[in-house]
């Protein structure tokens, strides 16, 4: 009878009997990448993917399609409640990714060289450390103090974990990234496959240091120096370069190369991207311009932000980063006027015909590295710098957009920040830049100003950023399950 009652699940593998082959280890590490996909999973509303939530917070993009989804409107209205679906989803995804990191770290540890070579193992191991750091980095920036959990869950009695200080979380992030860096020392800088390579590790390190130097830890110069060093290392590798045109950014052949240090991997059939269709005009023009139609209007630049670019800036040229008109899908001879600027940065030519986009989405870019290099140096030098390396880095980005503009002799932090607003817009970076600098870009005056007290174009009039808008509330579900999640 005992035999009769045995269970033999054939449809899944169990972690209790795993890490028995290189293929298994590989599959477990591959799993870490899939948590990035969650920012493309939508809620019940059209154009409600999680990544958009982070674009509404800074308020330089608007939502032409006015949805009825309260959780999304909370970001638009800067009125985020603890039962907001997005903050729960963000918390969930990141901690699940971290648990998978912890589990793989534990699993890989004792694996014998007969199963996997040390080189291969170190490479994969490095990826896991990177992912744990990456996920904690997002969490600590969005939520502040969070529980730091570094070993895999064995027993569910240990659920009520306490909050760790922001400092402690950053220390762990730094430690994990340095471990990843040393494990990947023999690794290549870039990965055409789209995996995490040394370039991504160092770029993230630069970003972590830059953030630690700023708010909320304000560790200052020492950390600007560390950020500067890491950014320089990436530049010095000579593995990355800016494309010479914005059209080249959209060329599918250029994915995972050039300025794309690390991207979310998409594929039109099995892992589509909603970005192309999210950013289509709304309402859909009478003459459609893309087969992906009808889902558009999730994000467009605020007119004032669009207008803030310098005259002649190539990013605001038609089909630079934006467009205001487009050929009709069925008749390229007909030019459809869209009535306002929309984002062209993520336009997918193939998707405009097939309806399905498989375009990768940038997570870490070389332009970001160059501007981090310039910003950190300007900070080290007391707010502005005449350092040639820093100015060259800045100018590489600036002159691509404004080729007629001369190279400056002196570069201020605010110059770099402004360029970040313009260059790395709508890529999920702006909000984090604002959090670490507590600066905003005043679209009317064209100046970098204090974030607190400023009302972005998207947000309701008379509702400027306040100190309490800078952190998400802990998700209600988690608070109920873990009473330690309280903020003073």
């Amino acid at each position, binding site marked *: 009878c*005992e035999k*009769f*009652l045995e*269970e033999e*699940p*054939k*449809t*899944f*593998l169990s*972690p209790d009997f795993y890490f028995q082959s290189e293929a298994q280890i*590989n*599959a*477990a590490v*591959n*799993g870490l*990448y*899939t*948590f990035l996909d969650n920012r493309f999973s939508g809620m019940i509303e*059209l154009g409600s993917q999680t990544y958009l939530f982070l674009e509404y917070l800074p308020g330089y993009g608007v939502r032409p399609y*006015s949805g*009825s989804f*309260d959780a999304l*409107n909370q970001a638009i*209205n800067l*009125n985020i409640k603890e039962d907001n679906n997005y903050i729960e989803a963000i918390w*969930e995804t990141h*901690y*699940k990714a*971290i*648990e*998978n990191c*912890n589990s793989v770290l534990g699993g890989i540890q004792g694996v014998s060289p007969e199963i996997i070579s040390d080189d291969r193992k170190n490479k994969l191991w490095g990826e896991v450390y990177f992912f744990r750091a990456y996920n904690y980095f997002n969490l600590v920036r969005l939520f502040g103090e969070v529980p730091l*959990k570094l070993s*895999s*869950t064995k027993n569910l009695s*240990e*659920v009520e*974990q306490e909050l760790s200080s922001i400092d402690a979380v950053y220390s762990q992030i730094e430690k994990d990234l340095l471990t990843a860096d040393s494990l990947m020392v023999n690794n290549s800088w870039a990965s*055409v*496959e*789209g*995996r995490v390579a040394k370039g991504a590790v160092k770029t993230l390190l630069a970003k972590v240091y830059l953030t630690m130097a700023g708010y909320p830890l304000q560790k200052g110069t020492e950390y600007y120096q560390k950020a500067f060093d890491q950014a320089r290392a990436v530049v010095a590798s000579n593995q990355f370069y800016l494309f010479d045109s914005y059209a080249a950014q959209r060329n599918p052949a250029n*994915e*995972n190369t050039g300025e794309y240090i690390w991207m979310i*991997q*998409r*594929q039109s*059939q*099995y*892992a589509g991207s909603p970005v192309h269709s999210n950013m289509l005009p709304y309402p859909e023009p009478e003459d459609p311009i893309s*087969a992906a*139609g*009808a*889902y558009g209007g999730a994000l467009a630049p605020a007119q004032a932000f669009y207008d803030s670019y310098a005259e002649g800036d190539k990013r605001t040229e038609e089909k630079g980063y934006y467009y205001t008109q487009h050929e009709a899908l069925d008749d390229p001879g007909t030019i459809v006027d869209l009535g306002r600027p929309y984002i062209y940065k993520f336009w997918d030519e193939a998707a405009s015909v097939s309806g*399905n986009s498989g375009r990768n989405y940038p997570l870490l870019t070389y332009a970001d590295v160059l501007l981090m290099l310039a910003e950190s140096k300007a900070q080290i030098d007391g707010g502005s710098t005449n350092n040639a390396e820093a100015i060259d880095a800045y100018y590489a980005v600036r002159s691509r957009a404004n080729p007629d503009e001369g190279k400056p002799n002196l570069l201020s932090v605010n110059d770099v920040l402004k360029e970040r607003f313009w260059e790395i817009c709508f890529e999920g970076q702006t909000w984090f830049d604002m959090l670490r600098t507590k600066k905003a870009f005043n679209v009317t005056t064209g100046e970098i100003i204090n974030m607190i007290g400023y009302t972005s174009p998207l947000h309701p009039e008379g*509702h400027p950023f306040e100190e309490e808008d800078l952190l998400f509330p802990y998700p*209600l*579900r988690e608070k*109920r*399950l873990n009473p330690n999640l309280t903020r003073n």
Partner: protein
Amino acid sequence: QTTKMDIKAENSTLRELFIQIEEQSQYRFFYNNDDVDVNQKVSVIVENKTIGDILNQAFTDLPYAFTEVNNNLILIEKVNKNASSPTVVQQQNTVTGKVTDSSGQPLPGVTVIVKGTTVGTVTNGDGNFSLTLPGDAEILQFSFVGMKTEEIVIGDKTNFNVTMETDAIGIEEVVAIGYGTITKRDLTASVSSIESEEIVERTAAFNVMESMAGKVAGVRNVSFSGKPGGGSSIRIRGMGSINADSEPIYVMDGVVGVDPQIINPENVESIDVLKDAAATAMYGAQGSNGVVIITTKTGKNDEGSVTYNGKVGVGFLNRKVDVLDAEGFMEIQKRAYAYSGKVMPHLQNPMENLFYYSKDASGNFLRDDNGYLIASPKYDTDWQDAITQNAITNNHALSFSSGNEKTSVYASIGFQDYQGLVKYTYSERFTGTVNVQSDIKEWLNVQAVVTAGSHERNDMEGGFGQGPVRNMLEMPPIVPVKYEDGTWGRKNDYSLGETAENPILLLREQKKIWDENFSVFNLITTLKLSENLNFTAKGDMQTTNARNINYASAGLLDVSETNNGYADIYNQIRRRWSNEDYFTYSNSFFSDLLKSQFVLGASWYYYRSESASAGSEDYFDDYFEYYNLGAGTTYHQPSSGMNQNTINSFYFRMNHSFNDKYLLGFTFRADGASNFGDNNKYGYFPSASAAWRISEENFFEPAKRVVNNMKLRVSYGAVGNASIPNYRTISSYSNNTAVFNKTLQPYVVLGNLGNEDLKWETSKQLNVGMDLGFYNNRIELLMDYYYKSTQDLLFSKQVPYLTGYSNTWTNLGEIVNTGFELTLSSRNVVQRNFTWSTDFIFSTNKLIVEDINGETIDTGNNTIAREGEEWASYFVFNRLGTWGLDEVKEAAVYGKKPGDIKYEDVDGDGVINDNDRKIMGNGLPKGDVNMVNTFRYKGLSLMVDLNYRYGAKNMGISVTMLENRQIYGNSVASVLDAWRPENQNSMIAAVRLPSDVYFGENEKDSRMLYDADFLRIRNIALTYNLGSQILNKVNFVKKLAIGINVENAHVFSSYPGFDPEIGAFSTDTGQGIDFYSYPRPTTVSANLKVTF
């Protein structure tokens, strides 16, 4: 024949005598006018005499004999009679005798007839009879209501002492209790039974679960929706479990775990519902939610019959939601734009597709003083009418029955075709069954039952996104179904409307088909090893091939706009077999003082399902629908799966009856299930029960004239529940493919965290009951009280995400269901031509969370579980109303302004957050009352079935959203009462545009909670049975009945949604939650039943 009458017929005609008798009793007289002269005078003056005494006296000088044929029908026939003897016969062979019951008491009024003739008599007050036999007399037949008919060979005997045994009527009725039957008299447990006539009473019922509604105390029909072909389910004595299944287990002819949907109610002989632990413990681990034992029809030992039962009906939407018409819709739009300081777009730029505009003679638009256009809506569409249809229902069954002493056959075929209330939805079911039974040898009986059929339904339930049921309420009335040019109207045709496809187009072009082919094969062999010992070996095999098809043609907004249509087919094969082997031993001891019955057996259950799915999109032509997946140019990822579980059980039961007064029962079952941890595979479930038939005691004798039956029952026992998904004790990875530079690579991520300690959920139930019969069971009363504590609840507990998991299965805490059940059956009026009977059923249930480790568990949809509170209590903000113009300051504390919603700040900290939620009722009714009144006048009968339910609150998400989110679609009419400066005392926030911060606050708050009490006229049935006099003339028709039936005739309720009896998400915690549920039709049907 124990009815005693007082007759005063002095020099009356026979007819007058008969009428007197008929008025006082259920007897009816039947005679041939040519033979019997009812105008003959008789004189009978008696008190407290039986029919036998009365007629014997009346016929003393008349040439008539009487026989009770059946059912109180007295046949009067002419006989050649001398003054001295009651009958004239060919040979003067007189026999005498005495009839007694099993306890030796004389039985008066027993009909004694010579079999095959009409010669007979009735025993007198002392149970004695005397009868003169015709020459060819061979067998004497003794019949008496409530007793088994006895047949005795006459032979040479002239004196007969006959003991009659009680028969299966009333308390002697046999009920199925699993692995055997027992008489109601000997029953110690709580079991309720329904007979076949009651099961088919409600002609619009889809399945046996609906047929059972309101027929059994403590059994509640849980309707999740009114969609065709399903959505119903039952709960016995509340919700026994939290996350593990709360469905009872269905046992059909001994086959454990049958899907009740496949059973044609037409084929059901009886349903017995086992409720307390004493009854359900025999099913051990599968019994904790109660057991429904279904016995199907077998062939009758008669000359054979063919029965056709047909029902044709039409269903319609009888209860609409009060939504705005075009005028109201525009009024709300006007207010919203005005509040937000904007002008309605159609007054700025003409929208001639939707509005008529005032123009001057030359066709120029006229403008008012403010420079705005002058417009009025072109259309005023009633979308509830547009989307629903008169749903035709067809239900036909043909059955054949035949048998002789050794073998019987029953066969039937049934067809049920129900259109849904919502256009294009339907349910279609075919069933066929054959039930053959034969005594192959003296020691061997074999029964084979085969049921097979198919069930297909297309239901577009659920309005999660923008489904048709949702949009039948939310489509703006100013939009037409179709414009003059043939284009379909859409929700967003007027400014700010949500994006949604035309709901009728969606219904036409989208299919969600559930399709099943099923078969059950069941073979039961019973070996008679000795007089007292039987061995039964039973094997059954159930197979189901299920398909789930999702299809959409190209170009549906929001559905298939970018993929040119899609089709997905999910296939699943389910196999279930089981083997049961058990011994049954019954005997009596101590000279019949103790009667005992024993059952000992073992069983093995095996279940396996395998599934696969495939699909594609981007079709160049809609022609293919879902019949040619290869025609799509983009393939969906295929998938497949497997699931298997097994149970192995051993069981024992004994029942003892001592002196027919003291009854004792004991059961024990051990169950091993594959889905539990290695150390906890087996669970042990004992139960004990006792009953005392107080009415059989000597001291009770004086009361017996009034209370003829009184039994006290007590039982206690433990039952288990193992209905959780498989493989929960094993940690798992989920796997799929990840993309790296456009190529796919395998990946795994942590899935389920296995819990090796997972074990049975156990319900311990105490039941105290009393059965009462008054005036010879003219009034029967059954009462039960139960206390059912479920411990080690199988619970998928939420864990913090930082563990890396969302939920884990665990055994946790305790919930307690308590309730009271009362069943009252009364034959109020019993007369020759008119009867009136009432069945009244009342049950209450309360489910309290006793222990959940002090935690607060989120049970979904803003309901929680907390110790000491009722399960799944609504946990919401309390909406007090709206802020008034004189409360600017107070409102500002919460960032609000006059016209915004005002919530109760429970903790008074000036912030509305989670701490301000309150428990405010729940969706489970406190009590349920069912009353069926049946009136019969001659062949005509009228049944009225009423259901009253109270104590539940509905969370009307749909209705409240229709009030909150005004501008995105149509609203309920109550929105007209929204806050305005001149109407500040309102629960509804000022109507505004979505650009306002507090537009359409979607908090689940107390405004969403509605009183869900209702009184439903569940069924009215009017039936006419053609009398046998008429049918005798058409001698090949045995029975003919025609009827009209109104299902769900009317609901009295203040609930503003379609139906107060509702449930969303097909889960227990979704009970009472209304989220665009499929409305329930009112169905009028005609019924014809004819037996040849």
